[in-house]
Every structure is written in structure tokens, then in C-alpha cells.
């Protein structure tokens, strides 16, 4: 019996014969903003896909709010990695957010008034309600991320997984998104955010899992963001500069 939001134990997974995750174990406490930090190809997306039930693990267990991960299939809020999304598709921001409700509806059934209300609230939460009728491809990078976050919110889940929500947007948009994630944490959500970009996120996470195929370290951000552990994760020497409200990390 545990009261962790996420408990991953002895997880192995990969593709054909390629091992992407070896013996991964960690826990995430409820109501915290947890980071999943590792370089490109370290298995962050694979880990998230296993947690979501989108990719079959070879061995090990995922427990979510003390239930077997399979029981949670379809009930975890999620934003996929940005590059996987088709921005030329003719849908509006509103259409995209409403999709967050589709899984709950069941086959054939149409969105109800309640689903529309929830989609609208999610858009308001991320400050995109006024631009909801814009085509998804006509929004700026930062706005597109917000729409994806709103879609995850519309899923009405206690656990949200974000795969690289900060990649490729400018500093202002990154800052705004991080503030939004912190607000969601304050609301009592549990967030798990994958990133390979250390430049400005270090001090925003409560807990961090350092991943490079296997878990290099996990724990409170202050304890984990050390030069030694980060260098081990990224396989090159990194310099940690403690700042006022942020820790900057440079090569």
C-alpha cells in the first residue's frame, strides 16, 4: 500500500531488440511538479508511452494512484511531443481541446453541452479562449502549446504527462508555460514533465527523475541537480550556476 501518484518498479522496455529503458524505478508524490530530464534518445517519450499504455513494457510494473496502470488507460492527461503533431490539419483550437473529451464519451456518442463547457473552461484556464476559433496552424508556437495543455486539462485527470512542452518556443512563452504548470500544481494536479532542455527549468521542479536509459537519480530538485549527476546523465561536463530564482546549467 502506497500513496504515491506514480510508482514505477523495475521497468524494462524497448523496440524490437533495442533496449530503451533498463530497470527503471521511481515514485512521484501526488500534487507535485515532477521533471523527467535526460538527453535525446534517453527514453523519456518511451517511458511516458509505457505509463499511458501506448507501448508494451517487457518487464516491471506501473502503478498510478495505487492502481494497476492498465486500469488507468485512457484516463491520464497527456500532450505528445510537438513534432508528432500535424499543424496543417484543418481544425480550430477549440476542436483540438474538445478532443480531450472524446475518449470519455465512448464510441459514436457526440459531445454534450457539459463537454463543451469543460473544453471552454480549459481554454480559459490557459488564456486561449479568445483565440479558440483560430486554425491550429495559425497560432504561434507558444499558443499551440497552450492549446495542447488545455486539451490535457479537458481530460479531467489528476495526473498530467507533458512530453517536451517547452521545446522550441521563445523565452517568454517558456516562462508563461512554466507559470501555468505551477498554477496547475497549486490546484492539486500531479504533473510529470519531460525535457532535455536544462537552460531555464532546473528550479521549477519539485522532484526530478534523471533518466538515461536507466534512472541516474531521482529525488528533490536541489538534491538531484548537482554537477556530478547532471554530467553523468548527459554524458558530458555541465556547469551548474545557482541563480536567484532559477538555476542555469551550461556546458
Amino acid at each position, binding site marked *: 500500500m502506497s500513496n504515491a501518484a506514480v510508482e514505477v518498479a523495475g521497468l524494462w522496455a524497448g523496440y524490437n531488440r533495442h533496449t530503451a529503458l533498463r530497470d527503471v524505478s521511481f515514485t512521484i508524490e501526488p500534487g507535485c511538479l515532477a521533471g523527467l530530464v535526460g538527453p535525446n534518445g534517453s527514453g523519456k517519450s518511451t517511458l511516458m508511452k509505457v505509463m*499511458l499504455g501506448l507501448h508494451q513494457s517487457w518487464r516491471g510494473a506501473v502503478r498510478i494512484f495505487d492502481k494497476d496502470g492498465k486500469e488507468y488507460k485512457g484516463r491520464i492527461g*497527456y500532450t505528445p511531443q510537438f513534432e508528432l503533431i500535424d499543424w496543417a*490539419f484543418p*481544425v480550430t483550437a477549440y476542436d483540438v481541446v474538445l*478532443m480531450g473529451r*472524446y475518449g*470519455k464519451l465512448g*464510441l459514436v456518442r457526440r459531445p454534450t453541452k457539459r463537454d463543451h463547457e469543460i473544453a471552454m473552461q480549459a481554454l480559459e484556464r490557459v488564456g486561449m479562449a479568445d483565440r479558440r476559433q483560430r486554425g491550429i496552424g495559425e497560432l504561434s508556437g507558444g499558443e499551440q502549446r497552450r492549446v495542447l495543455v488545455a486539451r490535457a486539462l479537458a481530460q479531467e485527470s489528476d495526473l498530467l504527462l507533458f512530453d517536451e512542452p517547452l521545446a522550441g518556443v521563445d*523565452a517568454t512563452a517558456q516562462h508563461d508555460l512554466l507559470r501555468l504548470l505551477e498554477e496547475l500544481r497549486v490546484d492539486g494536479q500531479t504533473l510529470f514533465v519531460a525535457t532535455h532542455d536544462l537552460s531555464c527549468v532546473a528550479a521549477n521542479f519539485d522532484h526530478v527523475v534523471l533518466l538515461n536509459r536507466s534512472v541516474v537519480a531521482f529525488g528533490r530538485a536541489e538534491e538531484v541537480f548537482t554537477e556530478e549527476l547532471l554530467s553523468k546523465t548527459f554524458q558530458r561536463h555541465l556547469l551548474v550556476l545557482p541563480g536567484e530564482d532559477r538555476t542555469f546549467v551550461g556546458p
Partner: protein
Amino acid sequence: MTEILDFLREPFSLEFMQRGLIAAVLVSIVAAVVGSFVVLKGMAFVGDALPHASFGGVAVAFVIGANLQLGAAIGALLSALAIGFIARRGLVRYDTAIGIIFLASFALGILLVSRQRSYTVDLFSFVFGSVLAVTWNDVWIILAVSLGILLFVGLFYKEMLFTAYDPTMAAATGIPVAAMQYGLLALIGLTVAVALQVLGIVLVLAMLVAPPATAQLLTRSLPAMMAVGAVVGVLSSIAGLFIAWHADVSASAAIVLVATGFFALALALSPRQGILAKLRQPITDEDEAEFTNGRDPAEAGHTTG
């Protein structure tokens, strides 16, 4: 005045022209609806492969003396599902799977037909289309299959939209993505099967692609794209048959040429992406506003850095 009306009405006063028109209109409506997914998902190669693959089914039906239409449908459907199956295993690339399946089926068709002493007109009508030879029986079959396809899209619209737009996320929220992807392939297969008789193997792809691509330039939502695509397809069918009658040329070729003409027109005149629109307004007010709002990454980084 009455002369002009007669000129317009004349082709469609004959029953075989009416039957052809009904068949072409039905086919262009389903082709626009299903073709919208084909265009958005970049599946044109599937749209080209399935008509060719159906030739295997036609040839088998021809040899055993079965209904050719049914043979075409079974050939297209089996090939569609085989493509989906191989692609899902992930062992070979999607386009490789398509290429292998369609060439195997097409080669089987050629092999079987090469054994026959006389190629009948029937077989050739599948290659080039024979819209003016459709019977009332054919029309009823096309109508039933078309309604079935539209019903499927209507019922599972939400699942098809989500799967097409973002399959990873759709799967994560519990949408049966695999079933929807097979479903779409089967719909393309069925559309191809009914369109074959009207357009022929070589030209089916044009009606799956040209009207929805035209609509995509003019619309900004999937339902609108389907609707405008259907209108373009229907207009192409009417105009194509009309031209074919008066100029005594191939009906399927005329229909396809009118449809591609619509596409060229939309490309030139589209309010957003159009060539003319771009020539007329080098820099708009909106571009300026966007720049000064600091959307330019370099700008934004500078002000906060």
C-alpha cells in the same frame, strides 16, 4: 433562349446519360468525403494502389465467371486490409507495404488475363471506366455502398477525426485507433470499388484527391472541406459528362480534367494561399502587427533575456 436550354438539357434527356450522371454524382460525393482523409493524411499512394490492386480481383472474377464488380470490391478491400496489417507490424515502411501488395495483385491480374484468348470489352471498361454503360442495377449497388460509407463516416466522425489528426493522443485517451485506421483503409477500398466503373483504374485517384485538395484551399474545417469537395466533384461530373456528350470524348477523362481545372483555379484564387492573393499584398497590416508584438523569436528573446 430555348436553344441554349436545349443545348444544356440535351445530353441528360437520354436514360443512359441519366444513369451515368447519377452514378458519377454519387461516386464524386463519397470520393470527396473519403478523399478528404486521403489528402490530409498524405495517402494518395494508397488511393492509387487500391484501384490497381483491384485488378487482381477483377481478373479472378473474370476467369471463374463471377461478377466483375464484386471481384473488384473484394480485391480492393483485401489489399487495403493487407496494407494495414503489414504496415502495423512495423517491419517495413508503409509505402513499401503498399507497393508490394498492389504490384502483387496487379501482376496476378495480368497473369490471369494473359491466359485468356479474348480480352472482352468488360475488362477494358475497368481500366478506362465506362460511366455511360452503367445499368440501373449498378446504380442501386453504388447507391447502397455510398450510403453505407457515408453512414460509417457519420457515426464514427469523432473517432476518425481524432485518429487522423493525432493518433498517439487518440490512443492515449482510449479511442480504438487501430480499428479506425483499418476502417479508413476499408472505406478507401470500397470507394475505389464503386468509383472504378465510373472512372476506371487509372483515373480513380484523381477524384479521391483533386476535389478535396481544391476544397482544402478554400476551407478551414474538415466538414467544410468534405462539403466543398463534394460540390466540386458533383460539378465536375455534370460538366464532364456534358463535355463528353458534345465533344464525343471519354467521359471519365473529361470529368477528371474539369476537376483538376477547379483545383488550378482554386490554387490561383484561394483567399489565403492563392497565387493572386500573394501577388497583390506583399506585406499586410497583420504581418506588421505580428512583428511589432514581438512574436518574432529573436525579438521576444531580446526583451526578456
